[in-house]
C-alpha cells in the first residue's frame, strides 16, 4: 500500500504542477496593458497587509470598489488613462480586468443552481 500512497501523491503533485503551469500562463495572458483603465483587480505582494495594499491603491487616486477574500487583492476603478501603469508603479504585481464573481460560482458537487431567494440575498 505504500506504493499506492506514492502513486496517489505522485498523481496529485503532477496534476498540481500542470495546473500551476496552466494557471500561471493564463494569468500572464490576462494582464492588462499599462494604458488600460476601468474596473480592475489589482494584486499586491502577498506579504503586504490589507492596509498597505489599500494605501498603495489610494496613491493612484483609484476608487476602491470592494475588498476581496484576500487582503492583498483589491477591486479598484479609475477612468484615467494609464491607470494600470500607475498601479504597477505603486507596487501592484498583477492587474486584471474585474469580473463578476459571487459565492455561487463555487457550485456544489451536484452542480445545483441556487434558488432565486439565495440569488437575491447574496447577489
Amino acid at each position, binding site marked *: 500500500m505504500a506504493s499506492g500512497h506514492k*502513486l*496517489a501523491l505522485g498523481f*496529485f503533485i503532477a496534476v498540481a504542477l500542470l495546473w500551476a503551469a496552466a494557471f500561471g500562463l*493564463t*494569468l500572464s*495572458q490576462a494582464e492588462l496593458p499599462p494604458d488600460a483603465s476601468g474596473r480592475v483587480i489589482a494584486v499586491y505582494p502577498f506579504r503586504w497587509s490589507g492596509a498597505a495594499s489599500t494605501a498603495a491603491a489610494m496613491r493612484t487616486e483609484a476608487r476602491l470598489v470592494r475588498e476581496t477574500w484576500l487582503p492583498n487583492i483589491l477591486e479598484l476603478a479609475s477612468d484615467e488613462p494609464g491607470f494600470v501603469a500607475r498601479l504597477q508603479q505603486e507596487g501592484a504585481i498583477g492587474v486584471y480586468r474585474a469580473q463578476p464573481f459571487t459565492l455561487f460560482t463555487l*457550485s*456544489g458537487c451536484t452542480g445545483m443552481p*441556487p434558488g432565486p431567494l439565495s440569488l437575491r440575498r447574496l447577489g
Partner: protein
Amino acid sequence: MATAVPTPALTWRTPLLVIIVGCTIALLNFGVRSGFGLFLEPISAANGWGREVFAFGIAIQTVLWGAGQPFAGAIADRYGSGRVLAGGAVLYAAGVALTAYSTTPAMLHVTLGVLIGLGLAGTSFTVALAAIARMVPPEKRSWALGIGTAAGSLGQFLMVPLGQAFIAAYGWAFALILLSLFALAIAPLATVLAGKAPEGTGAQQSLSEALKEAGLQRSYWLLIFGFFVCGFHVSFIQTHLPAYIVDRGLDPATGAWALALVGLANVIGSYTAGVLGGKRSKKYLLSFIYGARAVVIAVFVMLPMTEISVLIFAFSMGLLWLSTVPLTSGLVAQIFGPRYMATLFGIVFFSHQVGGFLGVWLGGRLFDMTGSYDLVWWISIGLGVFAAIVHWPIDERPLVRVAPATA
C-alpha cells in the same frame, strides 16, 4: 455457485495505467462542471437574461446527469465503458462549446442543460469507477475507488480558479471553448477503460436478472437510502451555507473560504476513505461517516458562530464529504460483483441526486416559510442519524449465486 476468477490479463492496459487514466477522467469530468457557475453572470449579462435562465439550464443538466447515470451504466455494462465514456465526452464537449453560441434561452437549455447533462452521465463517476473496479485486483479496489474519487474532488477544487483565469485572459466565450477541450480529452483516454467485464468474472447473469437480484436485496435498498442522505447534506450545505453564514452576521468571504476548505478536505477524506475501505468494514465506516456528519452539524448549529467555528465545520465536513463515494461504490462491487456495477451504482447515484435536489429545494423552501435554516439543519442531523443506522445492518458479504445444474 459461480467461482470468481482472477481479473484477466489486460495486455497494455495495466492496473497502474487504468488507475491513472480513470483518475484523470474523474478529474476532468468533475473539474469542468465545477466551473460552470463562473459563467452565470457573463452569459446572463451578454444575453440580457435574468439569472433564472442559466439556473434552469443547470437544473436540467443536474436532473439528466442523475437520471442518465443508470442508463449510461447499463450501456457501459452491456457494450463496454469505453464507448459510453467516449460518446459522453463528445456530448459533454459539444454542450460546453455550444453554450458559448447559445443566444436564446431554449438553446441554452439544450446545450448547457441537455447536452452537458447527458455528457456528464456518460463520463460520470459511475462509469469511470465501475471500469476501474473491474480492471484492478479486488484487494486494491477500494483504494483505487478512493483515489478516483479524490481525483474528481481535486478537479473540482482546481478548475474554478483556472476557469476564472481563462475568462479573464480570453473572455467567457473562448473560455468555454477551452473547457470543452478538457471535456473532449476524455474521449481518447476512454480507450484505456474500454471493454466490459468478461462473462467469466461473475455469475452468468443478464442485466435484468442482475437488477431483479439487487432489487430483492435489502442491503441494496439500504445503500440507496443512505446515499440519498449524502446528496441531501452536500447539496444543502454547498448551496445554503454561505447564506446561513451571512445571516448569522459573518462576512461573505468566510463563506467562500469555507467552501474552498470543504473542497480541499474533500480530497483528503475521499482518499482516506478508500484506503480504510480496503482494510475495514465499509458499512461500519459509512455508519461512522454519517454519524459524524450528524454530530458535526449539531455542534455547528448549537455553538455560537465565529469565523473559526465556520472553518472548523467546513474542514470537518470536507473530510466527510465525498468519502462516502468509494465506500458506497465499493460495497456495490463487493456485494454484487463488478459485472453490472455501473448500472447498480448508477441507480444508487441517482438517489444521491434526488437527495441533492431536495437538499437545495427544501433549504430554500423552508427558509422562505420559517425565516431561518434551523429546521433544515435539524432535518440534516436527523437524516445523518438515519443513514448511520441504515448502513449498520447491510450484509456486505458477496452474494452467493447458485449456478444452474448441468446435465
